[in-house]
């Protein structure tokens, strides 16, 4: 069965108290290195953003199916897979950001969570709690809450879609057998 290529969900927009986007959120803020020994997916969610000021309670606020909206250079720093998997653990549906750390992007694609680059998503007036519809193939984003189109994201590459459809990189590899 094919997975949907249009996703809909409530957004959580990562900004600071003054409503400014937080750039350069590194993997230590997302999933602190003191929890690196954790390898069980379902235990990871509770530590998400445990080291990001103002967002420590993210795990309680997030609901299954939420879409995470982030700023520039999200996931800079180390190569830890947990910084991606903690969102899968919370059943976050996808991550949309202005730009990402290179290894973070690799890890996200490999784990099958849709990750999209929308270079101007923070400029658009999108608020936590809004519902959006996003097309993985065209990159179109529509704010369902106020009936407005937002500036588009870069469409998923074929590779990203292949892995997403298979599940994870390893599921994709299994299919190639």
């Amino acid at each position, binding site marked *: 069965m094919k997975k949907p290529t249009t996703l809909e969900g409530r957004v959580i927009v990562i900004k600071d108290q003054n409503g400014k986007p937080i750039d350069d959120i590194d993997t230590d803020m997302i999933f602190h290195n003191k929890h690196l020994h954790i390898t069980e997916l379902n235990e990871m969610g509770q530590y998400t953003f445990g080291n990001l000021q103002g967002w420590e309670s993210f795990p309680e606020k997030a609901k299954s199916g939420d879409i995470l909206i982030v700023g520039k250079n999200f996931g800079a720093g180390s190569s830890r897979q947990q910084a991606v998997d903690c969102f899968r653990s919370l059943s976050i549906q996808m991550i949309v950001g202005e730009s990402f750390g290179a*290894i973070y992007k*690799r890890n996200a694609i490999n784990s099958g969570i849709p990750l999209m680059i929308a270079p101007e998503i923070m400029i658009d007036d999108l608020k936590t709690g809004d519902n959006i519809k996003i097309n993985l193939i065209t990159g179109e984003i529509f704010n369902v809450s106020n009936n407005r189109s937002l500036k588009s994201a870069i469409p998923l590459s074929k590779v990203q879609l292949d892995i997403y459809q298979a599940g994870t990189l*390893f599921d994709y590899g*299994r299919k190639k057998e």
Partner: protein
Amino acid sequence: MGKTIIEKIIADHTTEDVTPGNIVWMGIDVRSARDFGGANVVKNLEAYYPDQSKVDDPEKTFFTFDCVVPAKTIGYAENQQIARVFARNYLARKNLFDVDAGIGSHVMIEKGIAVPGTTVVGTDSHLNILGAIGSFGQGMGDQDIAFAFKTGITWFEVPESMTIIIEGKPASNAFAKDVTLGVLQEIGSKGSLGKAIEFYGNTVESLDLAGRITLASMVTEMGGIIGLITPNKEVIHYCQNRSNKDFAIHKADRDAIYTESLELDFTNLEPLIALPPSPANVKPVSEVAGKPVDSVIVASCTNGRYEDLALVAKMVKGKKIHTDVMMKIVPATKEVYAQLLENGLINILFEAGAIISNPGCGGCAAGQIGMTGKGEVQVSTGNRNFAGKQGAGDTYLASPATAASTALAGEISVPEL
């Protein structure tokens, strides 16, 4: 539209459109893992493909143990054993380079496993050193490498390219390492972030294989994907001899597109040194000369070749290393060690007072030759001096010649040649 070297190599290994920014599936000629990360590669393969074959092509799949050899901690010993048993079960026996072999990337060049134009992946973040022979090497995480073992392919985002053209003859006491540090000083630690560099110019062309390895090895510290140097006759000959293979030499098209082109004039470049805590924190050696040091290490994938150690031997021959300095020497590979032995250089180094280790990484990543203690000042020929990387002390990065003159003087000193 013209293509850059990296675009041509990738295009040889994929059927998809190779344009910067595109992600393509790319065939991998050589898939490898080292002792660091290797055990996790095996664990991933066992977890995800329990009842299936785990290796797409045993002939193209390798393990190289080099980080901590022989293992000095139980953790490393156990990880090596996990990888060793896996290699014995699933790979050609000759494809396991155990604790005696040396640094994996160097072994691959010496054994003709990596040749110009090939794609090579492994768990070593300095695998892009293979750019020295015009091969596309790339370090990746353990999941990525497990996948490459299993399928023989990986996905890759085609990087943009930039050129760095270096002209001029450096001073007679400045070497490939000084040229490399000179580039770092110019472009900094993010200067080639996410990009492939193509190195040109007469300074680069005149580098021998060891010098090219030195330059390519520190592209990681510049933030780059890889630094490619077009093989000259000598390098082509070397790789043909070692591999018994023919291979394509890719040159960039005239109308290839680069994001940036940098021209550097290194005429009379003086010896340089990177001060802690960053490889890009580069100053002339003369500015820090006189600083007392406790240890000197000549080693690593950056400067552990025969040519590097032979120069050190020449400089310390018949002299004594300063009483307050411990000098550690780690040949990059078993072959380098054999050459030193054959040519009597081990003797010279020993007589001068150096500690000579078996081959491997040795100094980085808590290797077998030991670390620095708090307050210890070390001059290293390696590639990273981040806090804690080589121990708690302060590490300065310099050429083998600067390392040798420093070891003799007991303080940082400009080599005289």
